[in-house]
């Protein structure tokens, strides 16, 4: 029930007065915040959730039951313990993300508190074009190398030896990092990304990794300035946005700000879900279209980036609450993607789901009238209803196509992929708030 206006009062959905004196003397609306708060909170007791649940071990392992309580009972939950507002309904989460006028996303450089950080080049068109060109050309080959080496063993851990390795090899190859340095680069990149966590020990380590990565890249960048190649570092060097030459800091920040979780995490989660749902597995491996649908369903059902923070640019009233300036909003993709008002049987993994859009979710706009799984970390959704031919595909589409290619390659080299006997893999985060994915997925298979 929407709010109604009666006798100069605005009556909220709980039947309580949320606003009196609708006009100030100058004609602007007048609110009494305590009326909004007090009465709303009387009607909306939060006894079904304890603050400790949102940081608990159970939540780290499986956030879904907890966020379902929030979504069903307290869709804009004021979390006093973590000083934030949890947004859990699908439409609310997408509305916050498409509302740049009132909310902002803070970059990872803000988390690190970097003074004068470099520029993030990830949205530069030439870089996107180069990335698309590289990925389309080389993803198949990189996946094949991994699949062939796995096939020779007859068993393996798909989470680390396939999902994580493919994502990292793709990045390393795209940057043309010498193969002797692959281990060092992987470690630096991973430490730098984990440093954006709330954990001060990881952040400190991440800071060091940022410095080390800068030192590591210095000679590489110097060489490529003289002799540019086709790799993405060379592309970044040649970008020089606003006629300012690209610096090492720009390159490091660009690497820091890129999504590092979706390809790795969703690939691992996709195979976890397929291997624990044999019927869906058979369906998905039968053709590329169905593998793509399985990937999209994974992004919805078990997205690796389960929440993202947004910050209120100024005091704003939303969802029956007055949200103060600077407030942190925890937009929960885990809750939104399983919103029963949007998806039927939301907890079920259904490869050929009929109620899901196959394209990137773009705020309130839905390409074919259906919602899609929310995936954070892939940059702003494209503002174009359809991608013009002269533009590269969005990162959302690029990541999707790459993951599908890698999975297809795996299927074409390995037969009869099954969970190793006696194993019961699960999804979890390393610490509360980090990527929610499958870290161990032991499998057996035969060579095709």
């Amino acid at each position: 029930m929407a709010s109604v206006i009666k006798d100069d009062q605005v009556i909220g959905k709980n039947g309580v007065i949320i606003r009196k004196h609708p006009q100030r003397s100058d004609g602007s609306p007048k609110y009494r915040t305590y009326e909004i708060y007090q009465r709303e909170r009387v009607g909306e007791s939060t006894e079904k959730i304890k603050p400790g649940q949102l940081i608990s071990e159970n939540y780290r392992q499986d956030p879904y039951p907890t966020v379902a309580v929030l979504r069903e009972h307290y869709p804009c939950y004021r979390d006093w313990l973590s000083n934030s507002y949890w947004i859990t309904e699908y439409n609310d989460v997408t509305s916050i993300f498409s509302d740049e006028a009132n909310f902002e996303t803070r970059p990872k450089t803000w988390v690190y508190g970097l003074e004068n950080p470099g520029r993030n080049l990830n949205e530069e068109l030439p870089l996107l074009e180069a990335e698309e060109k590289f990925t389309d050309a080389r993803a198949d080959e990189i996946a094949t190398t991994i699949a062939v080496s796995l096939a020779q063993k007859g068993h393996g851990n798909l989470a680390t030896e396939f999902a994580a390795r493919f994502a990292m090899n793709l990045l390393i190859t795209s940057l043309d990092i010498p193969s002797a340095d692959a281990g060092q680069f992987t470690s630096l990149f991973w430490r730098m990304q984990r440093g954006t966590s709330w954990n001060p020990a990881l952040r400190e380590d991440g800071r060091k990794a940022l410095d080390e990565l800068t030192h590591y890249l210095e000679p590489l960048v110097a060489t490529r300035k003289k002799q540019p190649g086709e790799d993405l570092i060379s592309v970044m060097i040649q970008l020089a946005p606003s006629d300012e030459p690209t610096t090492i800091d720009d390159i490091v920040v660009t690497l820091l700000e890129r999504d590092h979780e979706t390809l790795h995490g969703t690939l691992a989660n996709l195979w976890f879900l397929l291997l624990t749902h044999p019927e869906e597995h058979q369906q998905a491996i039968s053709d590329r279209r169905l593998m793509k649908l399985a990937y999209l369903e994974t992004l919805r059902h078990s997205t690796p980036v389960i929440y993202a923070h947004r910050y209120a640019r100024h005091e704003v009233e939303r969802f029956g609450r007055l949200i103060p300036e600077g407030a942190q909003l925890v937009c929960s993709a885990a809750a939104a993607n399983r919103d029963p008002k949007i998806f039927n049987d939301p907890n079920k993994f259904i490869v050929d789901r009929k109620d899901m859009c196959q394209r990137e979710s773009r705020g309130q706009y839905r390409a074919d009238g259906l919602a899609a799984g929310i995936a954070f970390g892939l940059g702003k959704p494209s503002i174009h209803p359809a991608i013009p031919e002269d533009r590269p595909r969005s990162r959302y589409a690029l990541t999707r196509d790459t993951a599908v290619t890698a999975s297809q390659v795996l299927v074409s080299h390995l037969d009869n992929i099954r969970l190793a006997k006696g194993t019961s893999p699960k999804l979890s985060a390393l610490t509360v708030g980090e990527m929610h994915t499958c870290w161990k997925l032991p499998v057996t298979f035969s060579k095709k």
Partner: protein
Amino acid sequence: MSEAKKTPGTEIDPRVFDTPEFQKDPFPIYQQLRDHHPIYHDRFHNRWIISRYWDVDGAFQDNESYDRAVYKPDGPYDFGSRHVFGPNILEYGNSGEHRRLRNIVAGQFVGQKLQDFIPMIHQIADEVIDSFIDDGEVEIVKQFASQVPIRVISNMLGLPREDEDTFVGWYQALIAGLGFGGEHLTAGLKARNEMWDYIDPLIAERSKNPGEDLLSRMCVAEMDGSKMTAEEIKGFVALLLAAGGDTTEKAIANMWYHLMYTRPDQLQDVIDNEDLWENTFTEMMRYDPVVHAQFRHTTREIQIHNDVIPERAGVILYLGAGNRDERAFKDPNTFDIHRNDLHMGKENRSGRYKDGKNGHLGFGIGQHFCMGYAMARQESAIACSKLAARIKNSRPKYAEHEGISSPSIDSGGFRTPAELWMKFDT
């Protein structure tokens, strides 16, 4: 409990703030904060923490940079309250509205107005002590500490004495409702609504026929032509019951706990010299006060200790940590009622004293300095000295005690021992 037992390191995992260990003994973490992270950005809880004495003092004094209210006073919305008590001055930041309400009521708790209530405090303390004096033992928390303040406040307000037990139930629920837990919030709101229903007819009656009690005075008090509304009076009564009742109750229990377990060697000093009860109160408010933290929001970017706290950030002022700062007090982890580097007399809102000594931060400082400071001090000292005067050979009933603890993150309330048994001769 008397000394920090762990060797503090430099790194702090912010999850520690949610643990029972921290709720029980936060002092090693406080030391780490002061020594290694004078400004600690806790991203896990989305807040900044200030812990050194002079930094906490500075933040309390700096109304231009730190605001208690969640919302901006110059924002598009009127000020108000998100509070379980209802509209009350705790939520009115640094605004004119805060000054108006505070000016109306603050005078009731100091000077001659306070002195008018002193005989009543003596009488109530005696009545409470009578109820257990013949037993040879007392559970101080429930039988003594929790009985005195609520009776004093309901008496001040002129509320019927037969309902005092109901008030105790209400204020405990109200205080717990200030914590993080939803269940407690629900119970707090229920208690508040019951209390408001109870008090509504009383406000109507005393506005017409005012007496000498505090409720009547609030109904008729005027400051610059402005009176409190009925809603504001009810919010203030809730505040008074909770902040004036529960905090003083905990303070009395904590004083006895520290004398019995932290410094048993000083218990006899206090028994022998009743003037030392005020020292005990002051040192308790420094060493381990009832309230350890106050929340503020920055109104502008603040540069401090080579760090920057952004505008509209949540900041915790750990006054419990500031009180143990070696930069302000010698041997800060020692409880000592004869301490000569702490201002032992009455507190004031400036936090500056003629004797040149530092004061404790337990009542806050500045614009939001506790209004009931003098009342709490005198009430505690009178009640404790009355008890001490009527008993001999007071001693803990049990040699071991689990100590004082703050409530868990899923509940609310103040720091206090769960129970405190004392044996004595009469």
